[in-house]
């Protein structure tokens, strides 16, 4: 056998023994404890011992969704950050980029995810969707069509949906900040 150890001795770095904490777990701890969120975003851990499942509430303080509190569930698997976190909207909301099942169209959650991104980038990306909804990437086609075709009607629909209104037969959840 090649004497790998004698080579090691020449290296400056001291030998290390790392804990058995998984890379995914350390990375999530690092991501969460270094979150730098504005006051418009808040995390909640149903079980504080479980860092892999939690919710994020976004309360935009400007834009057309101001006055609402939007809740997203985060589920992180053991292959993080190779796999992106799974994020879903926990409410039925009227938004061009969120469908009625809670799926979210945000590129960094799927096709543009990279391990160098972190939970902070995802959260900031989600908040941006409420400031600048994007009618070009629709998941709720009705909403996207309304937004590009008839902006005033769209704004009214947003207000109505946030109060728990019914738009074209779809019952939306009331998301108003109490």
């Amino acid at each position, binding site marked *: *056998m*090649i*004497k*790998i*150890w004698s*080579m*090691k001795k020449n*290296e400056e*770095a*001291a*030998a*290390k*023994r*790392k*804990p*058995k*904490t*998984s*890379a995914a*777990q*350390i*990375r999530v*701890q*690092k991501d*969460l*404890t*270094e*979150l730098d*969120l504005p006051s418009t975003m*808040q*995390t*909640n*851990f149903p079980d*504080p*011992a479980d*860092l892999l499942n939690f919710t994020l509430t976004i309360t935009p303080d400007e834009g057309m969704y101001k006055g609402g509190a939007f809740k997203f569930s985060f589920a992180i698997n*053991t*292959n993080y*950050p*190779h796999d992106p976190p799974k994020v879903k909207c926990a409410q039925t909301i009227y938004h061009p*980029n969120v*469908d009625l*099942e809670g*799926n*979210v*169209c945000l*590129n960094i*959650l*799927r*096709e543009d*995810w*990279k*391990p*160098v991104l972190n939970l902070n980038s995802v959260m900031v990306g989600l908040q941006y969707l409420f400031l600048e909804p994007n009618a070009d*990437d*629709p*998941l709720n*086609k009705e909403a996207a069509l309304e937004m590009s075709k008839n902006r005033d009607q769209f704004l009214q629909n947003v207000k109505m949906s946030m109060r728990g209104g019914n738009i074209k037969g779809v019952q939306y959840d009331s998301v108003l900040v109490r």
Partner: protein
Amino acid sequence: MASQPNGTSTDWPGRYYHIDQVLNTPGPRTDPAFLAGDGVKTFLRNQAKILVIGAGGLGCEILANLALTGFKDIHVIDMDTIDISNLNRQFLFRQKDVGQPKATVAAEFIMKRVPGVKVTPYFGKIQDKDDDYYLQFNLIICGLDSVEARRWMNATLVNLVDPENPESLKPMIDGGTEGFKGQARVILPTITSCYECSLDMLNKPTAFPICTIANTPRLPEHCIEWASVLEWPRVHGDKKMDTDDPDHIGWLYKIAAARAAEFKIEGVTWSLTQGVVKNIIPAIASTNAIIAAACCNEAFKIATSSAAYLNNYFMLIGTDGIYSYTFEHEKRDDCPVCGGEALEMTISSEMTIEQLIETLVEKQDIQIKKPSLSTPTKQIYLQAPPQLEKATRPNLEKKVSELVPPGGEVTVTATTLPFSLSLRISYST
């Protein structure tokens, strides 16, 4: 018989004729430590113990190559059973073996075909085995198709390294293929760049934007992803999709085919459906053969010192002609597995968590501000977010010895650390 350098009675005449050309005399590229002749042959044939992880497309090739180059104590782990679709390239398996464990059938085949070689199979997961199991090997070769399994194996081997015990450093040779592309690399845990260091270099499985899938499907894959990503959870709620269950694949196929018909898209088939949801990239027998050969060549060179081994990454691109490239992938300081610092700490069993944190912050040699601490099984103290800080705050007053056993490990993260710091705690009183 244990020290017959030229083999055992079961070796056929001339078995080592070619290999011995390399082992009998030093060459211009041999390591200075190389001792040509009987010593190295005895090591290779009677002492070296090698572990092969995966008995699939790469694994079958690796096992055959190792047996024929003269490794005689080979172990193999695989958790899968043989599927009929494996038979075109996993050449140790026959039709009659379908449904049998890959590891067992592969081991039997090699032992029957190459007398004198002992292959010990384990039908199960790599995670079933503990440190003592991995410590018995000189070398480990991975022929896996899963990122998760490789990450686990890599982290386990990095953890295994004990500065007091040189034998605990196990070279890991990792092979991987994707269609006509492949790579082989040599990882010397804690010395060279590890698998985790290069995680961001991996090809991402093709993912299509969810709004394309929902609104403007153009490809059969879009229809299949619509069925699996959007329709499955909508219809089945929390029920998990099992990509090995033919009923589940059948359901997805039916839904995808209907969607394809609606949008006049052609090409949705049962096997494409399975391929997309399991993220199967066609396996090419020749790519497997080349990568397996590269891996076994490295194993042979490391085990014998007969030539310089790969430093440390070999890439093969066979999509347009043949192109290969070798480079040294650099170790990353901020790698969560092999980067960061490790610290042995001996503290009083009366010390509280709060005092431990103060001690860490005051340490001059490591600049830590606001550290967050955890053990492999629980959080000790997290600085943020506020809810977790509050939940872990009562631990500050507890004694470290209540939360961490002697010799136990604590992971420390902080914005000021490149990645993490690991503490090994022992108690003075």
